[in-house]
């Protein structure tokens, strides 16, 4: 599958190598610190002279894999009954188990298992009917037990795929569909939070988040750049939100992404990868990855080599820097979690006859209850409303925009394509300009529908409608019709009045009339409009 990353990336501007000068390097692909062989063989020259290239003649292709931690949207934590809320007072949601009091034991939260199964089904994974829990040990103040309960040996799901879309902006606003393989999905505990107070040289620990359920989604390195990664994450976010298994708010830490980035030349083995952490939004994700790809390319170009290390993204400077406390290899001393028996999930064929339904997770039942996924929704919009795929892409991508569109479409006889034009070009344009989201729009779907109805009925011209739109945006409270009245923007409907006005204009502009007759150019003086 490395071939998928060897093609030209549609969204990046890395040009195909066709020059004849190239250095051959050999990399040994490994994740450890062992010595690396960087050999430079003799310069190969072809006999034909070559034109000097202004752009970088070597083709380096980025290889990007992602590890995504999605906080499960549930009432209680993964193994304890504490509540799950963002921004609660520090250490107010900590049970005895979360604080690692000795003698406390984990009890698995059924909702978290269901969430993992739902997500795995939506990502076309194979569900492991039997999966196991393990302990991953390391010492850190925000990990009270000194170990994290995760699924290392046998996770709940493997071998899935995520299909996502890229808008190719350069040409024809085309939508390109790509796929990334999902290596596995596993259940694990979140850690608490540390707040470093350097002025008092102390660290404050908040354990509210310790023990919250996470689904770790591991994406294979099938992506080649920041834009692809961001698009994949965005699609995952939409899927999780549609399922309700994760609210996907990156700013609140509900979705956290770590990127594994390396570069190589197509046909060569994969390069050494670095892990990029501390990415707090989808926007920064693309920038962080692209910066890292460029950084690695620059290092390799200048004859250096890449260290297998963990780097932190600094959004202020837009650069990645090595994370000092993650130096060296960590041995996590994995051990089976002895307090949790194997997790068994069932389907209709295997569910035991007299099982307590409260104690059983049935994959088939969950599959039946799956809600409409984003790609299905997009196809449905195209089919139902006859809009273009790239428009349904935008509708589903913007939070609340699809609902807005559907509300407007319900209230107006205007053609969906026309509605799309207004919503995507005019409304969304203004919203973006003012950094508002759809729910904050000063123009309600009803107002928009009213305006469109006026346009349809011929009460206003399209340019007048734009004016009304601007007035509505100001949010003074008047409706579209009221604005039309107030500003006298209504189109004259009466034919005789129109004729009279035209006559008056023609009579008072004889020169222009002669010119028009002569040249056949049709140009209406502004008076008539």
């Amino acid at each position, binding site marked *: 599958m490395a071939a998928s990353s060897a093609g030209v990336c549609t969204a990046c501007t890395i040009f195909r190598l066709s020059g004849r000068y190239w250095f051959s390097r050999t990399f040994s692909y490994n994740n450890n610190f062992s010595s690396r062989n960087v050999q430079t063989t003799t310069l190969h020259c072809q006999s034909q002279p070559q034109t000097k290239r202004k752009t970088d003649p070597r083709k380096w292709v980025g290889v990007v894999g992602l590890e995504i931690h999605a906080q499960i949207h549930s009432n209680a934590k993964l193994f304890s009954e504490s509540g799950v809320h963002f921004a609660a007072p520090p250490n107010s949601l900590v049970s005895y188990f979360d604080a690692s009091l000795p*003698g406390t034991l984990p*009890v698995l939260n059924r909702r978290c298992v269901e969430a993992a199964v739902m997500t795995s089904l939506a990502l076309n994974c194979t569900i492991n009917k039997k999966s196991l829990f393990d302990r991953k*040990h390391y010492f850190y103040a925000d990990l*009270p037990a*000194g170990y994290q309960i995760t699924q290392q040996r046998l996770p709940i799901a493997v071998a899935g795929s995520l299909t996502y879309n890229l808008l190719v902006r350069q040409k024809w606003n085309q939508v390109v569909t790509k796929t990334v393989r999902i290596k596995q999905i596993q259940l694990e505990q979140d850690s608490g939070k540390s707040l470093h107070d350097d002025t008092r040289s102390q660290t404050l620990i908040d354990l509210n988040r310790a023990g919250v359920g996470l689904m770790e989604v591991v994406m294979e390195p099938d992506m080649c750049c920041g834009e692809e990664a961001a698009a994949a994450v965005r699609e995952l976010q939409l899927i999780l939100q549609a399922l309700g298994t994760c609210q996907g708010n990156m700013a609140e830490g509900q979705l956290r992404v770590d990127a594994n980035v390396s570069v190589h030349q197509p046909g060569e083995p994969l390069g050494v990868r670095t892990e990029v952490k501390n990415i707090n939004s989808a926007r920064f994700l693309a920038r962080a990855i692209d910066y890292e790809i460029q950084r690695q390319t620059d290092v390799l170009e200048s004859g250096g080599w890449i260290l297998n290390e963990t780097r932190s993204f600094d959004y202020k400077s837009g650069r990645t820097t090595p994370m000092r406390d993650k130096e060296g290899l960590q041995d996590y*001393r994995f*051990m089976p979690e*002895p*307090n949790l*028996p194997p997790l068994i999930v069932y389907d209709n064929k295997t569910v035991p006859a007299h099982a307590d339904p409260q104690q059983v997770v049935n994959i088939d039942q969950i599959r039946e209850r799956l809600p409409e996924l984003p790609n299905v929704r997009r196809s449905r919009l195209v089919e139902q409303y006859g809009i273009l795929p790239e428009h349904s892409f935008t509708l589903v991508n913007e939070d609340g925009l699809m609902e807005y569109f559907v509300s407007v479409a319900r209230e107006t006889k205007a053609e969906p394509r026309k509605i799309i034009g207004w919503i995507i070009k005019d409304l969304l344009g203004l919203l973006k300009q003012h950094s508002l989201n759809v729910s904050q729009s000063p123009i309600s779907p009803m107002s928009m529908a009213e305006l469109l109805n006026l346009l349809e009925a011929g009460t206003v011209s399209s340019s007048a409608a734009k004016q009304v739109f601007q007035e509505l945006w100001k949010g003074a409270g008047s409706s579209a019709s009221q604005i039309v009245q107030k500003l006298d923007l209504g189109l004259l409907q009466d034919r005789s009045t129109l004729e009279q006005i035209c006559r008056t204009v023609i009579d008072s502009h004889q020169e222009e009339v002669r010119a028009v007759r002569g040249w056949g150019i049709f140009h209406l003086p502004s008076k008539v409009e």
Partner: protein
Amino acid sequence: MLGLTLREVSLALREGKVSPTELCQRCLHFIRKTKFLNAYVTVTEEIALKQAEQAEKRFLKGETLGPLDGIPIAVKDNFSTASIQTTCASQMLKGYIPPFNATVVQKLLDQGAVLMGKTNLDEFAMGSGSTDTIFGPVRNPWGYSRQYQERCAQNPEDTKDSSDWLITGGSSGGSAASVASLTCFASLGSDTGGSTRNPAAYCGVVGLKPTYGLLSRHGLIPLVNSMDVPGILTRSVHDAATVLGVLGGHDPKDSTTVPEPFKPFSLPDEIDVRNVCVGIPREYHAPGLSKEILAHWTKAAELFEKAGARVVEVSLPHTQHSIVCYHVLCTAEVASNMARFDGLEYGHRSTIDSSTEVMYASTRHEGFNDVVRGRILSGNYFLLKQ
């Protein structure tokens, strides 16, 4: 009165021959008298008297809770007891007061048992002598028995001075001693690799290790999660069955307990072993086995045979590897379970705190004894991948 079995004294209570308060006070008095045994870490005098008072009210009304109502019991100090110090005989948890009761402790209290106190043990249940404790070793009551003293006097060359004493075995030495010294009628121990059975044998009491998964481990500070069980120490087998009947059953807070409903049972008055097949593992006749032990072992096998049981030789071919396997598994889990003791949330915290790492290291060095630290190091070694 104190020499009675649990069953007998329970009957006496119900018949009004003795009151719960009186019984409690007698036990407390005896605890004070046998203080030199060092069986108790904490004696919960006030709590015991209050519980006895409440039991008395129930007895007067005729609304007793069951066979354990009003009965003095003791609990090993690695079971969490709400508002009562739980130390595991370690500096690390000295002064640690849990906010909850272990499930088995709660079950005992719900049945009206009267808690005499928390008993001494090897630090974190690591040991088989009850000698590695910060509170000093537990002494075997039989070392102060008339028979033993007379035997010592008869062998002048073996004269031991008054500071000599005998060990109780371990790690539930305090629990065994408390039952053997008649300060309570039953006590809770824990058993991972013999920690209930060993001291029971040394102290001449009944020690029962229930099957894993039968009793809840919630609240038992773990040594090896996959092998620990709460153990029961009593003065008769019947008593052990009674306590087991109260404590057994699925606990939603412990995912390793068997989900099937637990039915308490009662032992028949007449034991008939004719349908019992007893196996004697041939590999247990190991080199170095003392003549005395071999003689008793043989005697027990003969007893069964005479009573009509079928006694056969069996083979447990991996016996020679068992202790090694145990050590690897035990130390690996210990290393994992002890990782939570970092001084941050509870327990001992070192004053040396120039950095988090330094604080962790000094806290754990100060809090744990050699045995615990040794096992943590071994366990981490076994868990390392490279």
